[in-house]
């Protein structure tokens, strides 16, 4: 195993009867990154997390997490892992503080932990609610309490299964701020999400579809994969004719068809935006087109994801 990788999987497969939940998954996850695991509901994200945490035993394939197959995890291996489940599983009749204390106990955290627990409650902004019963908390507060319980034993590697599911956009953003802070404290985060837009906050993104890991890329790389290159938007004062579009498509660094946004605006896919912009400006001048706007576009990840899935369906 490479020393920098916290997760290494090779041909990892999990079957439930005849159903294949995870199919030949290959993955190498370096230490210290935020890894976003995106995909539609039921695509196998949670099953993969459960394989990585040792909850499920793989049907076949090789898997090492922190250098050890999860099925052989010792207690000390488990102490290095934090796991936030998809559902709120803590005790509704215990207070915030009592739940956190319970989590600290079953992870074997020293009894002198008062300061640690307070710091965590401060971190998730629940210090003022520590005497509230968990059943009286809002959905977002429950997720924050769960996150604090996951962090209580200072794990190296965090598996967070849809931590932002069902909470409002402002709180979602706050969660990603927490995750960035955790990354800065040398934690490695493995985060599953249905909100593909959250891929933008990750260092690496894995796209899962029907049990298959389609790719692992940086967010930019993902866009490039989806569109076949960088997208440059061009808006001119004059109409862009079909002749202009043919010329653009004939340029050597332009990939595929030019997308018409309006009579005076098109999107062009190029190999490398940083090089292509200068050439395109020259081409516009030569065509006597007055450029009002020319910039690299970042298509929303929702579109990126849809394109990737469409491509996958087309390949099938």
């Amino acid at each position, binding site marked *: 195993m490479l020393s920098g990788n916290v997760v290494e999987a090779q041909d990892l497969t999990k079957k439930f009867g005849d159903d294949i939940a995870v199919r030949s998954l290959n993955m190498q996850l370096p230490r210290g990154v935020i890894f976003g695991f995106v995909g539609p509901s039921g695509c196998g994200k949670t099953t993969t997390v459960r394989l990585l*945490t040792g909850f*499920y*035993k793989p049907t076949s394939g090789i898997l090492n997490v922190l250098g050890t197959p999860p*099925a052989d995890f010792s207690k000390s291996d488990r102490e290095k892992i934090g*796991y936030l489940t998809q559902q709120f*599983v803590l*005790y509704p009749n215990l207070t915030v503080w009592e739940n956190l204390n319970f989590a600290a106990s*079953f*992870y*074997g955290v020293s009894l002198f932990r008062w300061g640690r627990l307070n710091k965590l409650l401060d971190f998730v902004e629940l210090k003022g609610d520590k005497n509230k019963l968990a059943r009286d908390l809002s959905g977002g507060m429950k997720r924050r309490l769960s996150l604090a319980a996951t962090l209580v034993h200072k794990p190296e590697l965090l598996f967070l299964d849809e931590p932002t599911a069902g909470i409002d956009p402002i709180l979602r953003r706050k969660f990603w701020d927490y995750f960035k802070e955790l990354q800065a404290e040398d934690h490695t985060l493995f985060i599953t999400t249905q909100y593909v837009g959250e891929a933008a906050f990750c260092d690496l993104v894995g796209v899962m579809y029907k049990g298959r890991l389609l790719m692992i890329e940086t967010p930019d790389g993902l866009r490039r994969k989806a569109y076949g290159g960088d997208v440059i938007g061009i808006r001119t004062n004059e109409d862009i004719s079909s002749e202009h579009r043919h010329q653009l498509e004939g340029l050597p660094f332009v990939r595929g068809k030019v997308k018409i946004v309006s009579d005076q605006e098109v999107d062009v896919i190029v190999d490398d935006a940083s090089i292509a912009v200068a050439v395109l400006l020259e081409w516009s001048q030569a065509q006597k087109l007055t450029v009002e706007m020319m910039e690299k576009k970042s298509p929303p990840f929702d579109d990126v994801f849809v394109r990737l899935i469409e491509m996958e369906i087309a390949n099938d």
Partner: protein
Amino acid sequence: MTRIFKFLIRISSFLSKELTEIFRQPKLILTLVLGPFLIMFLFGLANPGQGRTLRTTFVVTDPNSFQKEIDAFTKSFSSSLVNYVIENDGELALKKLALNQTDMVIIIPDVPLETIQNNQQAEFLVYHNEIDPFQIGYINSVGRIYVDEINRQFLQSMVEQEQGDSASLQSNLEAAIIKTQTLRRAIPSGDVNTATQAADLEKDLTDLHGKLTTFRTLASGVLVRPFSAKISGLSDIQLTVIGFFAPAVIVLLLQHFSITFASLSIVRETRSGIMELFKVAPITAFETLAGKYISYLFFEIILAGIITVLAVWLLKIPILGQLQDYALAVLVLLFTSLGVGFLISLISETDTQAVQYSMLLLLASIFFSGFFLDLRLMKEPITFLAWSLPATYGIRMLQDIILRGSSAPPMIFLGITLIGIVLFLIDWTLLRKKMESQYA
């Protein structure tokens, strides 16, 4: 009209939803319907429908002298009622009674006929070792029936003997009459031989007079009931019904609390999903189970303390035995009951199912633990069911400690402890499998 339809539609939504949910749980329905029925059926099988067999020891100095009466008595009852042996050592018989090797000791008076002839009732001493007021009543009845039977036997033999005696008396009287006639004819001649006959006649008539005197002076009470019985228990404790049932109620309450709390514990965690976290966390099934046992034991001990204080203060139930024996018996009862509760929790799929199993166990405990029906009255196969319930052991232990003032019977204590340990091991194995089941 539309509003009425909407009203009905809204009602029907629950109708279909509730029924669908109920029928989706066939195991629950089966338990609900068949569980109580099965318990009642087994209870019907367990109850012999007749009095309890009493292992009776007759103590008599000369066994041959009363063998006839004892045989007649035991034959007059069903053989299942009295299983008797004859001893000539009263102390040994009472020791056996104390050790529960016999149920009743009847000490037959040494010289009953002489006592009766002295115008006194011959008293049978009947001993038992019961604390249950119903069983004491039963033994009193059996004792009275026994003495009535002996009296009947005695009167019969007396009548038969007197009939025999009266026949010889009649011939004696006839002979005396003839002798008197001869004497009357011979006396004038002054014969010596006649004088001797007259002397014999005088003796016969004197004997007859003596017997008649004895018969006439016998008290009618002694004549009709020559024997009586004095029935007493080995212990001097006089228990009320509440007093007798108090230990059993304490046991049933503690068992039920323990089982109910424990049965909901793991099933709730399985349902809530926290088991997923336990599996990933560095916590073992043993640590989880031990933690649960300790916490519930702590809580149940407090509860047991409160119940005991209430029983002693409010119900005025004295604990005659040692307090440490009582505490130990309660501890082992709670430990074993928690084992049953956790087992239910581990095999149940829902809270409802767990509660249902707990209630069935309470019902079974009421019927089979000796609370409702004395264990000695149960038929053999059903007693296996009885001895699989912690309450059966608990009731025996607490009755002995609280009511008799003795310590818990060692075999009973050992039995419940063993069951508790086996249950812990089963629970541990099942929990380990549950925490690892996702590996399948």
